[in-house]
């Protein structure tokens, strides 16, 4: 991975490439590439004599939700405290150390993940990722269809299911759902329509949903 990153940085000046390690046993580390040079990086990966990654086998999307992080912080403050002394209502400033829970939201994002193989050199996969700025309004990414033709339908699927808009795609429209559909089904916060009227062998979550229907026609 490191050599690939170095090769990209040499070939495409100004490219921002980060290695994202994969802690699982498969050890498939991925390269996070920036938006401006994505097409140039893709062209280099495909045309380079050593890498020759000419086969894009899969494009998929990943949804990372906004995370609420709660931290416990020790804060030292001067607080007025009533002191039990000879005179009532006497207030003294005392230093007190309190543990506070501070919450902040880490914004989520959408990613498009590409798996690249080489047919001639028989190596791979090289996994590259593109990340959007957030999940709501800045969801545009450059399309790699001009580099690998197989991205055409797969990026349409990612657009349909996750909502990532690919700039420069020749024909970006929904592929699995109908065009008037408004939601993005594979996002984490997708709510299914309520057509689970009955379930003969319900269990777990399906049981909960079926019980909400009970008694209703």
């Amino acid at each position: 991975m490191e050599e690939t990153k170095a090769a990209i940085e040499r070939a495409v000046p100004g490219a921002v490439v980060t290695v994202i390690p994969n802690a699982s046993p498969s050890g498939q580390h991925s390269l996070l590439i920036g938006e401006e040079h994505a097409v140039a990086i893709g062209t280099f990966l495909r045309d380079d004599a050593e890498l020759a990654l000419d086969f894009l086998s899969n494009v998929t999307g990943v949804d990372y939700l906004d995370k609420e992080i709660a931290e416990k912080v020790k804060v030292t403050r001067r607080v007025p405290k009533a002191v039990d002394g000879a005179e009532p209502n006497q207030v003294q400033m005392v230093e007190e150390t309190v543990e506070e829970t501070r919450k902040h939201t880490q914004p989520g994002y959408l990613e498009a993940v590409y798996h690249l193989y080489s047919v001639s050199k028989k190596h791979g996969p090289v996994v590259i990722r593109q990340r959007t700025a957030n999940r709501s309004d800045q969801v545009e990414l450059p399309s790699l269809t001009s580099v690998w033709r197989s991205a055409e339908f797969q990026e349409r699927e990612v657009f349909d299911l996750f909502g990532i808009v690919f700039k420069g795609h020749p024909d970006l429209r929904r592929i699995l759902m109908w065009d008037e559909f408004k939601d993005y089904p594979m996002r984490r916060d997708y709510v299914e329509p309520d057509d689970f009227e009955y379930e003969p062998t319900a269990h777990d979550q399906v049981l909960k949903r079926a019980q909400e229907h009970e008694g209703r026609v």
Partner: protein
Amino acid sequence: MAVDENLKIELGKQGVFVTTIQELYNWGRRSSIWPMQFGLACCAIEMIATTMARYDLARFGSEVFRPSPRQADMMIISGTVTKKMAPQVVRLYNQMAEPKYVIAMGACAISGGPFKQGYNVLKGIDRYIPVDVHIPGCPPRPEALIQAFMTLQKKIDAQHLTGEDRPRHLDANAPGEFQVPEFGEHDLEPSSNAGVWQPPLVTIK
């Protein structure tokens, strides 16, 4: 008015064949049901296998599978009906001429099957069109499809030509076309046809 069986046999021995118009009419209809070429998914492969040499479906009257719905008597819904495909299925059913029958083949056509929780899966085609025979299975064996055929044939045999329970094609007031669902923003609209399908009341503890 049915003919007494023993009388029929006795007369038959003398070379006289007695029957009723209803028997003759229904025998003609059930012995030549021509299905429409309509396969959606894996159950379609089993349907094709049923038409091939080993489990020959042509023995039972479905000599040809008509590609055009106008010329077909029956539609075998074989495979998962996606919500994107559902309006076209209903449209094709509307285009078939009466008398028409539907066999829902496999778990997906009956109730959504193993993919019931999918975002694009219609949970059973009987939400929009009336189904005559349901065959469970994933996929049902060719013998099961043949059994469904024979069940449909028995059902056609038992249809009376006059009276309250006469079939749809002899009843001027019965609907022959059903509402085609529209593509809504989150789901098909309507999500089921209330005149055709009511959700069965199942008490779940």
